[in-house]
């Protein structure tokens, strides 16, 4: 159907009061969404993901840079000429019309026969479980229901080249969310939709997207597949944002002893492999400060692993979560989270050793936040 190219796009907002002051909502964003790809814009609130989506939709002016849809520059095209469908986080439903008429609105404007409209609505209504509220007006619906109507209105648009979704399932309860994650992904595949999807929920991004664009403070942090982001986070922000519970960070200093390079955290020293120490030495401008990142699930508690890094600490708390438990270990005032399968018999206040493999660690420059690959 279509591919979308976002090339060096900026968005400035002029501040109302301060003359000449500008807020940079999106800074130099570049990414491509291929035909029939599911692309997620992921980031915390205020990171510029919605501004980016609205620029693609044509609802916001592009301050600088270019956006191409099917290799056609769309900067100066009106929203209606970009052939897009969009579902809104704020629902953007038509208050005087019933749910049925809301979904039918874009189709009726295109003079579809009523019979065909009926069939299409029945299809999406079934999918989104809104068949029983079709005759209600939006004001009578809950937030989750309105959100599904907004999604339905975007999904009936079979002529759309790209389907844009702004937090389309954020207001639903957990169960329905889980179902819709699966359904949306399946629809996208089956119908061959090109989807650009905005979310702050890493779970949605990781489970549905073919490609994820992680944004923070208006800047793109990393573009990659969900696996890339999880296995090879490009910087501290991505490492901390992706994964639940979040990655542990230990701030270390670089120590060189007998030609061997170590990263030292208090009285624990982690010897580095030659190629990593070379990379670190090449880039050693951060006063020797480095951060070791290790995911809670990659740490083993109590059982010694041969050739792995080992540390010792006091158990601070144990959080049982059903299938797993989160154990917090205090090491010199630094809390380290460990994910343990099943329930954990450890008691608070006990001193324990824990281990993690060298290849499971991520090393970041403490100053720039960039990962050493």
């Amino acid at each position, binding site marked *: 159907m279509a591919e979308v190219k976002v090339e060096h796009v900026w968005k400035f907002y002029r501040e109302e009061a301060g003359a000449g002051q500008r807020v940079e909502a999106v800074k130099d964003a570049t990414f491509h969404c291929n035909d029939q790809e599911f692309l997620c814009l992921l980031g915390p609130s205020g990171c510029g993901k919605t501004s980016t989506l609205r620029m693609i939709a*044509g*609802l916001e002016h592009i301050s600088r840079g270019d956006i191409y849809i099917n290799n056609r520059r769309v900067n100066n095209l009106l*929203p209606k000429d970009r052939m897009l*469908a969009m579902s809104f986080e704020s629902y953007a*439903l038509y*208050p005087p019309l019933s749910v049925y008429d809301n979904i039918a609105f*874009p189709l009726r*404007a295109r003079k579809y026969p009523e019979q065909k409209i009926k069939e299409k609505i029945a299809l999406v209504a079934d999918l989104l479980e809104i068949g029983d509220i079709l005759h209600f007006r939006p*004001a009578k619906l809950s937030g989750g229901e309105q959100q599904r109507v*907004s999604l339905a209105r975007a999904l009936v648009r079979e002529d759309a080249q790209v389907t844009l979704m702004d937090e389309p399932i954020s207001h639903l309860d957990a169960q329905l969310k889980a179902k819709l994650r699966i359904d949306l992904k399946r629809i996208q595949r089956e119908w061959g939709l090109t989807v650009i999807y905005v979310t702050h929920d890493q779970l949605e991004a990781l489970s549905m997207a073919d490609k994820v664009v992680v944004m923070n403070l208006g800047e793109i942090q990393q573009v990659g597949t969900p696996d890339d982001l999880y296995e090879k986070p490009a910087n501290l922000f991505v490492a901390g944002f992706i994964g639940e519970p979040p990655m542990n960070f230990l701030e270390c200093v670089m120590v060189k002893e007998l030609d061997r390079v170590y990263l030292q955290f208090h009285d624990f020293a982690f010897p580095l492999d030659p190629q990593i120490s070379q990379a670190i030495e090449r880039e050693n401008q951060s006063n020797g400060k480095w951060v070791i990142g290790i995911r809670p699930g990659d740490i083993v508690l109590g059982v010694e692993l041969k050739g792995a890094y080992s540390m010792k600490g006091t158990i601070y708390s144990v959080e049982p979560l059903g299938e797993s438990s989160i154990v917090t270990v205090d090491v010199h005032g630094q809390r380290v989270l460990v994910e343990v399968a099943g329930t954990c018999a450890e008691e608070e206040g006990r001193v324990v050793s824990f281990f993690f493999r060298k290849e499971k660690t991520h090393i970041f420059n403490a100053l720039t936040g960039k990962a050493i690959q």
Partner: protein
Amino acid sequence: MELRRSFWSRNIALLLFLPAFLLTVGILVPFGYSVVMSFTNFNLTTGTSDFIGIGNYLKLTRDPEFWNSLKVTLLFTVGAVIFEVGIGFIAAYLLNLGLLGQKIWRTLFLLPVMLPPTVAAIMWKLMMAPIQGVFNYLLQLVGFAGSEWLGGSSTALLSVILIDAYVFVPFAGMIFLAGVQNLPKEPYEAAAVDGVSNWFTFRKLTIPLLKPVILIVLLFRIMDCLKHFDIIYAATKGGPASATMTLSVQAYYHSFRWTNMGYAFAHLVVLWAIVYVLSYFLVGQWKKAVSEVHGG
């Protein structure tokens, strides 16, 4: 102490109720008095005040002057409301575009409502004067024949409608403007992305969303036009030859010129009934429209 406190706690409610009570009495007593008087031959000159049943109302049905007034009143209302709602709507749309000098336009637009209606009527009467008036002067300048305006039996009604529109278009326009500015933004964004034409959006979305506001303007203007007195009396005194003789002006003549109060009251009770029925209908429609837009 104990006694005083209980006195206050017992009577404070009555005291607070008093203004509302006085207001109600102040409205209902004269109204009830008018209704009662409409069943009498109350006449200030002869001093009679005898109960004559529905005599006055029977007389109304046979009075061609009354039927003419009713027709004039309704024509005036329909004409004035069409002008005011139509031009007011267009003005609100233009003022909402955010054109250059928007604040100045809004202030200028509001000027006519600040004029006392009588003053506006006299001002227009001068401009509409057939020989020395500026309208005919301008018309003749571009080659048209002048009009008789307020002086012609066929043009007088339209002329007073124009004066009324001049005074009340801003009123309608300002309420429409408030309505237009309160329209939610997001549905229009959705329509824009969906490629729905402006005309389709206007018909299917804007008009239903503005329906409560339109009905409020209709309600106020229809009630006001039906009862209209000041502009018409100041401009034409009901003439020429009853061409602008609305029910209010007619009732005024019957009461204060011919001192036939009972008969005048009968006119006013009929007028009240018309206003009441129409308002009742419009308020019902308004409630329905509000619930359609805002739920409930």
